[in-house]
């Protein structure tokens, strides 16, 4: 997933972004409300994690601006992450357009689970399992099994596979993959996506007449169970 974290504590940024990247997500970081809004205007995110007490522009104003339709991330799922814990403040945040609300201090596991739950909503799925033909992906345990055989993938390969699986049957462009898997701290080289797909194909294996990842020349890639073109 591509995630925007708007948080003015650099230490929390460090902890959360490191943990999320280790799980294979791309994370952009903003230290204040104005910067966060600028990122949201110019990029498409799956989830925005938003602090409320921010310098320059407070979190609720950022949220209202996102929902006003002036940003590329108008329909993005927003999780408010804040020290404000009263019922009134939670209600205000949710009514302003947030999808979830988590109070500091928090467990990273819980934050991750909530972000992933919001991410599943983005692709219209509810359960943690994804299936494409004989391939099964357990998104909670981050494990992949094909024809009963477990497949070990790197974090990046897993993230790529999960993204393609969530959009199974759709043609996904290289730019979409780049936007989704990479963030500003890890900008891909020109053929990084092609190499990642190639590596993933090799690991998914299967006989030559049962490929899962199909290339649509000039358009991108499709993940689905069908005969090779």
């Amino acid at each position: 997933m591509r995630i925007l974290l708007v948080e003015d504590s650099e230490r929390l940024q460090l902890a959360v972004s490191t943990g999320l990247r280790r799980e294979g997500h791309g994370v952009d970081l903003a230290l204040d409300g104005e910067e966060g809004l600028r990122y949201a205007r110019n990029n498409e995110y799956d989830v925005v994690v938003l602090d409320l007490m921010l310098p320059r522009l407070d979190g609720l104003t950022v949220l209202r601006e996102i929902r006003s339709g002036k940003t590329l991330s108008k329909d993005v799922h927003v999780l408010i992450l804040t020290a404000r814990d009263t019922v009134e403040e939670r209600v205000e945040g949710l009514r302003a357009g947030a999808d979830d609300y988590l109070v500091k201090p928090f467990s990273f596991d819980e934050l991750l689970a909530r972000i992933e739950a919001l991410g599943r909503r983005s692709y219209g799925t509810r359960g943690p399992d994804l299936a494409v033909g004989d391939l099964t992906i357990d998104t909670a345990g981050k494990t992949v099994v094909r024809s009963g055989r477990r497949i070990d993938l790197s974090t990046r390969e897993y993230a790529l596979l999960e993204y393609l699986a969530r959009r199974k049957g759709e043609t996904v462009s290289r730019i979409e993959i780049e936007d989704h898997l990479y963030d500003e701290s890890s900008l891909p080289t020109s053929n990084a996506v092609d190499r990642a797909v190639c590596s993933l194909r090799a690991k998914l294996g299967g006989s030559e007449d049962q490929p899962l990842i199909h290339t649509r020349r000039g358009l991108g890639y499709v993940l689905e169970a069908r005969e090779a073109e």
Partner: protein
Amino acid sequence: MSSLALRMASLGAGLSLAVGSASAAVLGLGAPLWLALLVALAAGALVFGLTFLAARRGLRPLEGIAMRLAAVDEESLARRLPVGDLPTELRDLAQQANALFDRLDAAFERERRTTSNIAHELRTPIAELRGLTEVAIRLGDDPEFLTKAVEEAYSIAVEMDRIATTLLRVARAQAGQLEVRRQDLEADEQLRAAVESVDELAQRRGITLLADDLEQITVSADPDLLDLILVNLLTNAAQHAPDGDHVRSSVRRTERGVEFRIENTNVGLTATDMPHLTETFWKKKDQARKDPVHTGLGLALVDQLSQTCGLRFSMTLVDDRVRATVVVPNPT
């Protein structure tokens, strides 16, 4: 049996007659006077009874006040005595009691906000500490992140130590446990030294500290506590001034005494914010805490130290400037 009865009877009759005759002889009273005495006694009893009833009725409002006072606890400090229904003589008493409730209510509310502010302020460093250590444990095999997490955890511990130490100082000042050792000081030198000690922090923020109006005046004050006050005020100004601002400080003699002033450009404070500035960890709703040096306790400490030292401290808005003033009063 009959002789005994007769003696008894005659004894009784004799006694009766003897007493009657003795009273009449000694007092010289006739039957109408007896009657007058009885009437007087009855009238006295009646007056006493009526006075008692009147006094009781008159005291009833006092009883009401006593009952209301007895029912007051920290949850019902917002209630007030109904002054309008009381007799004139009791209104002043009730108004004074209501004024006391106003002060108590404000003090309790301030205390509640302080507790809430402290808890709230500790949330961010605790969240940072928890996040860093949890992710470090989770990663396990990342020595680079582990080292960084330990370094940050150490910095957080230092910051929390600073907060705890300052809170303790405020509490000691409140409890009157700080010893004040007054001596003659050069006020301008005192201010100049405080400016120098805050200068590095100010420069990091692009703030210029100016000590441009310093009269050579001798004051009687505790040098350490006055230094703590001035350093905290300068630090507060340097942290809240807008980027590139000039923080001006001065010391001069006025009618009230020797006056220290520290001013910076106002960013967002309104008149209604001013009474809250000396509360521990108070900040405006949309104001973020990100400067680790900023504990949110500086002005609370200055307020308490000023009271302890007998100085007059105030924060005011003057046009587009925020002005902190500390006055060492003229000796009386």
